[in-house]
């Protein structure tokens, strides 16, 4: 508890490592992650499937499956009184106190995030009661406020069971339920996948509205690059369990530094290509298996700029210019 975080930092992750023990060996899902989440902003953690992005948040939120082992690292969370607490070291009872009120989490696939045997109303009630709100009027008022924030009609949804709602509605119920306790830090795992374009836009607006109303810190986990460019302030790119680049969103899209980031962005075909007379280019190869990751820089087998050093040693993280970090030997030759 002794460490202090800077004014604009909400969460600082240092050298976090986590593995899954499976029959075939160990999956190094989080492999030395260093990351700073700024306070009161929206940060995206971008990565493809198997890059370990969900594992990363499950590690610092401590909601890991049984076969997971945290090997090292810190996740310092700044509390409202200014002190920092290491989530990795935190006891179960402390975590339980933090969850919901301080740290909120919206898991991937809202389809299965609600208890099928409880009504939506019971979900809201239990959440508030577990956190000490018992006054009926207070509960009702809060619930209605939250539902209107996500553009849902309380009369329609409250008495229903989860399976009676559409996917988009469930998604919004989960967001309202998480925001109910107004957590200081909210983590959203792939909130837009499986939604059509129009619902996606509505959801982006809801998230934007929530963030600008409550000024909380949001972490968005996604593989959807275009959404990142629209909604977020900062981006961290995850590849094979490690952050390869992190910077302000504008900079990442204007001038990506890491070969993977720039190749990934230019591999996404978009309607805007037609306007810019741009042709997307494929990234060669396949993402590596975390069971047997390549040595050195994990990206070297797919990287056109790879040289000898890349194959041997993991590159260090360097700050190329203010607030723009990258892990690549191309920018760390002096190190």
């Amino acid at each position, binding site marked *: 508890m002794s460490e202090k975080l800077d004014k604009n930092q909400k969460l600082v992750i240092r050298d976090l490592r986590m593995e899954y023990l499976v029959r075939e060996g160990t999956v190094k899902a989080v492999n030395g992650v260093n990351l700073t989440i700024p306070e009161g902003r929206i940060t995206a953690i971008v990565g493809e499937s198997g890059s370990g992005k969900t594992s990363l948040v499950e590690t610092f939120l401590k*909601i890991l499956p049984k076969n997971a082992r945290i090997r090292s690292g810190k996740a310092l969370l700044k509390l409202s009184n200014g002190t920092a607490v290491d989530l990795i070291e935190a006891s179960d009872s402390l975590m339980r106190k933090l969850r*919901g009120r301080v740290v909120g989490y919206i*898991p991937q696939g809202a389809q*299965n995030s609600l*208890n099928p*045997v409880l009504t939506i109303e019971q979900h809201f009630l239990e959440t508030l009661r*577990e956190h000490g709100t018992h006054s009926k009027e207070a509960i009702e008022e809060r619930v209605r406020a939250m539902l209107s924030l996500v553009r849902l009609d309380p009369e329609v949804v409250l008495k229903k069971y989860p399976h009676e709602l559409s996917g988009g509605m469930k998604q919004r119920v989960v967001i309202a339920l998480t925001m109910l306790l107004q957590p200081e830090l909210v983590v959203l795992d792939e909130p837009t996948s499986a939604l059509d374009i129009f619902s996606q836009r509505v959801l982006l607006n809801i998230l934007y509205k929530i963030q600008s109303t409550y000024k909380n810190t949001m972490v968005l986990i996604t593989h959807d690059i275009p959404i990142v460019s629209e909604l977020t302030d900062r981006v961290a790119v995850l590849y094979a369990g490690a952050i390869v680049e992190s910077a302000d969103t504008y900079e990442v899209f204007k001038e990506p530094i890491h070969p993977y980031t720039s190749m990934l962005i230019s591999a996404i075909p978009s309607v805007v290509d037609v306007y810019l007379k741009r042709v997307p280019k494929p990234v060669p190869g396949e993402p590596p298996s975390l069971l047997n990751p390549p040595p050195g820089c994990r990206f070297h087998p797919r990287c056109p700029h790879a040289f000898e050093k890349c194959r041997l040693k993991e590159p260090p993280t360097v700050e190329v210019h203010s607030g723009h970090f990258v892990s690549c030997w191309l920018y760390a030759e002096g190190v």
Partner: protein
Amino acid sequence: MELTGVFPFIKLLSKRVLYAILTIMVAVSVTFVAIRSMPGDVLYTLAVSLAEELRISVEEAKKIVFYIYYGIDVEEPIYLQYLKYVIGLLQGNLGYSTYFKRPVTYVVARALGWTAFTLSVGISLSFAIGILIGMLAGFKRGTKFDAIVSLTSTVLSAIPGYVVALLLYIMLSARLGLLPARGAYSPHVEPGLNLAFMIDVLYHAALPVLTYVVITFSGWTLLIRSNVAKILEEDFLKYAEARGISRRRIVTTYIGRNSILPIVPLLAIRVGSMIGGSTLIETIFAYPGMGYYLSLALSIRDYGLLQGIYFMMIVATIVAVIVVEFLTPLIDPRVRREVVAT
């Protein structure tokens, strides 16, 4: 139940009752045919003595005897006999026991209670024990405890019910003499609402109940164990934890309810098979339930009793199935939707 759900519910109920009647009809018809082909009937002996007494032919006497006991006129065409028999059943006439010299309903009334008592206590106990052990094993999946539970359960579920009954009889009654294995209560106690009687009844029911528990609890254990393991992977559990829901509520409302609800419908199937299985178990313990009278009826060739008891067993099974089937949607909202959808 929501108002919108009531109409389909009734529709389903009528459909189910129709099925039930169909099932009973099939079973009754089979026994009706079977009884006609049984050898060495007591009625035949009766007919012979009646023939001697009245100096009529045995065939003639058989007609009279059949008419007296079953209300069946053997000269009538078979379908008419069948019809009359079915109408008799509908009027609550289960036939006549030649051994007890009373209507079968009299015997059934005494036997049904004992079977229902031991079976319901046995299955509730085994369900509770199964849930407890299954949940523990599910939580501790992969540990030594879990391995022992899963192996023991597999072994136990492989043992035939009557074998368990025999082993328990040998160990607890014949060898150690701890528990009685004859009758439902001792002759010296006064049946009624007195403590001595009730304790004696429990004492006598111990062996059958224990048998039912031993042969069924392992099945529940294995089911609950795999359900818990599945639910532990569910997103809604992770989300409840992330919302700061307490451990106690997660275990009861999230894991408990979701792992137990899907196996409630299986209770019906289990009850059905146990009613059938009680034949051997009650015979081994000489416990005066339906199963005991069924095998007694067969060994003393009292076909009226046999037919009546069997009919009641079928009805009891089907009632159990229907009750559970309609209880399930009331407690499980997911099934409710399926009910409404059909």
